[in-house]
């Protein structure tokens, strides 16, 4: 099932060879192999930064806000720490400047050997009051900033979601017929959410953890350079662990995401086909299929998450060795009351206090580094999610506007197909050299056996696909010279498969023309022969359809679909078997209305109904992707051996056939 070469390997700006989509242009076929080498993870994440750009002003404001809070709190925090720790708990006198700053009497707090218990107590109480007051003031500010942060990140996610939908809508039907909706849902809802983690993973966590790790090393260095060296050498073993695990983690996370997407597809597909499943009593089998998919998804999630857990536990094992070693070292030094190399932070020899302080600094530094690596493990999943987003975004839409495309102003005299060839898949030609002309003011019927290429012929006019070779001209110009959107604006289609949306009848009719007036909606419904049954609905035009709404028969839906096309008021109208489910009476009425409405327009009619075909000015008979006959009804029926006359021999002699049957 290879696709034609021109869209076989979609260009991907990132490492097209190793992680491209392969010759099929399919999504989600990575299976269990890792297509995202170690070094590319960061580049991938970096590439995602473009999505933060629209919100950069907000991000700057946010960081400024957090910075302001930090600037406010940091000195207060330092002062409080010193007050509580050194002055209150240890009873050491305050420096003169500090006493002056706090407006305290230096004779009591500075010029003494040790602070008196009552003074310490007073100091503590006022310090705690400051803490309470600062909390009361700062907390709402911090909460507000957090709310702002969530808003920004959601905004980023929202923009990405909309962009993904835009991309999905640009991709041709060739893509959509091969890809499941469930997978797209998963990409939109789950994979895209990973974008909200970028700021934290790329900036906040590395900066804060590395900062505190280095700070820890520096503090430890003031006590003992050897220990600082030990702490400084914690990263190589962690890096080895990280290197060994990260590829395995990525394989697992990709598998988990793919199997969960497949499960979503299973559910969606079953619900779409539930009527058939129930009619054929296949519920049990579908239940089994669902449970299998659910098992597979849970198993994949289990494997990947277990791997992550083993990784983080291993990280601690390594850190634990460092902690035990440094603790033992500090214990020995303290037991010996060994002198410090430098006199730092008021310590000159190893004491119990220093032992505690040292252990705290050392374990905090090690813990920060461990957190960084743990985050790295989690980042693998984020990267896989984002890679799945890029997979979709990097697909080159098959139909794209030329850079110099102009809007279609007028369709001129009509439409010309010149030697148009098209195939969906390499070995399945759909159209093999089609030539015809259709002029404004005429109705062209396209007939032929099922699967002969009728619908494809019209899809090319809408630029749902572009022909592999040959051209379609509109008003004497190649279709590709015009902006796709303007071409689609010039064409209205009533489709074979009647697609309605879960909203009111009125909204369904003006789906493509949201601004149409009620009168216009009514007129379109009248032409489509839908006004009568709509009037009988519980709430007329305001009746809800589909979702929690009223059920319509196929024939009724067909007429709404026609009304929708008519309302678009375009120079070209395509009716793809629009009347197949209509009874003869309605059909005749609808066609008569259409003929009248269609004066001065160009109408294509795909149908099997002789009663409809006869009204056409030209009939094109399509067989195996080629036009085998063309002409008016009379001309074609005159050819005794013709495809057309043999196709319609039965129906063209209705009087006889009807009478002949006993």
């Amino acid at each position, binding site marked *: 099932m290879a696709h034609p070469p021109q869209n076989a390997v979609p260009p991907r700006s990132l490492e097209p060879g190793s992680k491209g989509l392969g010759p099929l242009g399919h999504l989600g076929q990575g299976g269990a192999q890792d297509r995202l080498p170690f070094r590319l993870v960061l580049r991938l994440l970096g590439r995602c930064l473009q999505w933060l750009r629209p919100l950069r002003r907000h991000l700057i404001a946010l960081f400024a806000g957090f910075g302001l809070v930090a600037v406010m709190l940091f000195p207060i925090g330092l002062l409080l720490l010193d007050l509580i720790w050194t002055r209150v*708990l240890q009873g050491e006198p305050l420096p003169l400047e500090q006493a002056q700053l706090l407006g305290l009497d230096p004779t009591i707090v500075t010029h003494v050997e040790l602070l008196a218990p009552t003074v310490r*107590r007073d100091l503590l109480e006022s310090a*705690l009051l400051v*803490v*309470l007051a600062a*909390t009361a003031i700062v*907390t709402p500010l911090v909460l507000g900033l957090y709310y702002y942060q969530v808003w920004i990140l*959601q905004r980023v*996610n929202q923009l990405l*979601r909309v962009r993904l*939908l835009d991309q*999905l*809508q640009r991709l041709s*039907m060739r893509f959509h017929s*091969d890809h*499941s909706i469930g997978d*797209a849902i998963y990409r*939109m809802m789950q994979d895209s959410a*990973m974008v909200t983690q970028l700021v934290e993973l790329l900036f906040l966590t590395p900066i804060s953890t590395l900062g505190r790790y280095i700070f820890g090393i520096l503090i430890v260095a003031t006590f003992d350079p050897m220990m600082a060296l030990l702490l400084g050498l914690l990263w190589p073993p962690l890096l080895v662990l990280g290197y060994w695990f990260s590829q395995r983690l990525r394989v697992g996370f990709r598998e988990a995401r793919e199997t969960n997407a497949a*499960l979503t597809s299973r*559910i969606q597909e079953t619900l*779409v086909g539930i009527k*058939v499943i129930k009619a054929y009593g296949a519920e049990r089998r579908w*239940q089994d299929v669902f449970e299998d998919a659910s098992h597979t998804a849970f198993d994949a999630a289990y494997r990947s998450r*277990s791997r992550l*857990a083993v990784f983080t536990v291993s990280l601690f*094992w390594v850190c634990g*060795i460092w*902690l035990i070693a440094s*603790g033992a070292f500090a*214990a*020995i030094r303290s*037991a010996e009351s060994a002198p410090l190399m430098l006199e730092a932070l008021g310590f000159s020899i190893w004491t*119990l206090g220093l032992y*505690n302080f040292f252990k705290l600094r050392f*374990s905090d530094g090690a813990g920060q580094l461990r957190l960084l690596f743990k985050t790295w493990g989690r*980042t693998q999943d984020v990267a896989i999610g984002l890679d799945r987003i890029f997979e979709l975004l990097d697909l080159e839409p098959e139909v794209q506007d030329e850079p110099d495309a102009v809007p279609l102003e007028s369709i001129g005299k009509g439409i010309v197909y010149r030697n148009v060839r098209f195939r969906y898949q390499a070995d399945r030609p759909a159209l093999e050299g089609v030539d015809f002309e259709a002029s404004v003011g005429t109705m062209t019927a396209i007939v032929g*056996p*099922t699967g002969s290429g*009728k619908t494809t012929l019209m899809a090319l006019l809408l630029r*749902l696909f572009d022909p592999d070779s040959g051209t379609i001209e509109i008003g004497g110009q190649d279709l590709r010279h015009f902006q796709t*959107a303007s071409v689609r604006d010039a*064409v209205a289609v009533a489709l*074979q*498969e009647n697609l309605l949306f*879960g909203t009111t009848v009125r909204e369904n009719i003006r*789906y*493509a023309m949201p601004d149409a007036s009620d009168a216009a909606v009514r007129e379109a419904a009248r032409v489509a022969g839908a006004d009568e049954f709509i009037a009988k609905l519980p709430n007329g035009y305001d009746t809800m359809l589909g*979702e929690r709404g*009223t*059920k319509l028969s*196929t024939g009724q839906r067909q007429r709404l679909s026609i009304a929708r096309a008519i309302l678009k008021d375009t120079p070209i109208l395509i009716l793809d078997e629009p009347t*197949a489910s209509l*009874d003869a*009476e*309605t059909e005749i009425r609808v066609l008569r209305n259409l003929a009248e409405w269609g004066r001065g327009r160009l109408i294509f009619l795909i149908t*099997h109904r*002789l009663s409809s075909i006869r009204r056409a000015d030209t009939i094109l008979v399509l067989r195996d992707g080629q036009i085998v006959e063309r002409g008016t009804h009379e001309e074609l029926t005159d050819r005794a051996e013709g495809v057309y006359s043999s196709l319609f021999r039965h129906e063209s002699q*209705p009087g006889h*056939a009807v009478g002949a049957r006993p």
Partner: protein
Amino acid sequence: MSPVGQEKILGNFETLRVLGRAFRYAAPFRRRFAIKYLLSLGALLPLFITPWPVKIIVDHVIEARPVLPANYPAFLRPFTEALSGLPPNEILLWMIVLQAALLVLVGAVGTGGGERDRAESHLAGGHDQASRTENEANEGWSLASGLFGLIDFRFTIQLTQALNHHYRSRLFERIQALPMAVFDDERIGDAVFRVMYDTPAITHGVYRIILTPFTGAAFALATVGVIFLLFGDQPIFWQAALGMLAISLVVSLPFTGILRRRSRASREAGASTTSSLEEGLSNILAVQSLGAEDREQDRFGNDSWSAFANHRAVMVVGMGIFFFALLPGMWLGTKVFLYGADMVIAGAISRGDFILLFTYFLYLLFTCIDLGTLWIRLQESAVGLHRVFFLMDLPTEEEAPGTPELPQAVERVEIRNAHYAYPDGTPALRGVNLDLERGEIVALVGPAGAGKTTLAGLIPRFHDPDEGRVLFDGADARNFTRTSIREQVAFVFQETVLFDASVEENIRLGRPDASDADVRRAAVRAGADEFIRELPQAYRTRLGRGGGKLSVGQKQRIGIARALVRTSPILILDEPTSALDPETERALVETMEEARRERSVLVIAHRLSTIRHADRIAFVDEGQILEIGSHADLMARPDGAYRRFVELQTVGAA
């Protein structure tokens, strides 16, 4: 009207009921919960062991005081006796060995934040309901790390997943058992959301109900015990912790209703987003053809942003609770801090002891906050649970156990005075009588919306008549299971649904045990064989989503093959020929003629060429059969509705 989306707002009482029900649903897993409970308790132990090596190092290595076993709690006596008399260096060595063992086994070397670890595998989620839930569905954790933590973690994640799989499967089963009429209106995206993202609320809720209170209480008691052991009777700590429990309860309770409404709105908005996405993608052909991409993007964008906003609203409620509990909590904490500081100032305890004591107090405090906010945190679970149970509780087609199967191959179907109204109250059938015998072809004819499909749907019991009966060989259809009735019916729908499977498998849906030859024969008879063989892998070609690679007519023929492969006595064709070209239609009519030999055939059609082969033709309009008889009989009625119908068609053609 479809009942979906009309759930009641939960009150406190219903919340309790919903939670109680979740609890009962977890009953089959009670042994595994008991084990998880024991594992959780086991994971708490290291917390109480790890302080001792540190204390021993401080007291007997650094300060080099002799080990006096009498100063230690009874359970440590044998251990401390072994240490007593050893030189500090050897004590240190043994402590290193002990710490190393603790490191490997439970992943903790001390009490500080950086000195212990917890096994877990929480992944990043976004700021929306759906991505947050992915974690809940695969939640695994242990309060310990190391080998024990890994075992505990794996056990937990397996339990979580088993529970979720169980609930998902049960919900899916119930969805499949819903009556056909529900699916006419059902939003697929909503159901996807419920199965994927609402079911994990069950696990979450159950864990909160079963584990949090007990492990929390056990932990709190143990902490109080350790404080007592280390520092003697210090009632202020547990009093303050209890005070915090009260504060978090009092502060959070007024938010209960708000949180419930907000989190319900959040889930609903998430489900609508999924729905509008699913709908837009299902209809992508229409969207592209009609140039409605921008419109779809607006629609999805609005839904999506409203889901984000609702999720944010839930977060704001949480922030509110946090803020209002923070100040009284800090005041309490300050009191305790002052108390401890006084002890340091008075020289009763060292600064190190103070840190240890305060750390334990914080453990106790957070446990009490956990317990105090249990109820409020359960609200979010309850809302998810409610959405799951709501769908589970819709009346399904399930029959009372012991309902007999339709025993014999049906010879005769009779519909007697059947009335039926759509769920929205519009009457669809108004007193219909129709017979269908083996070997007979009956055609239903009439304008669109007349009720033909509804009438045909009575036979396989897609819906039961509101009034009147359907009889199989004289016995009321309601006496038999739907499955056994549907086994006897092959139904070809107006719009063919194909599944993402091979052509072969799609046909075989009609009869799973059909041989390759059977499948091929059915395809030949449905006029599908020719084009199927032209497909890249013929019968094994995998059809993409919805059979997107085939034309509508080709899909229809596969649908017909699916029905023909089923050797059932009743064949119902709902406009089988509407998308077929005349040639294929003729072939199909022949097939129908052939099929009638061993079956009854009911066909809904507009085309004269199909209809005129029927033995009897029923003209349906406005839910009633106006005329019934052979083509000749009906044509003989000068003012007959059927005659007018035929004339319009032939006049149109002639």
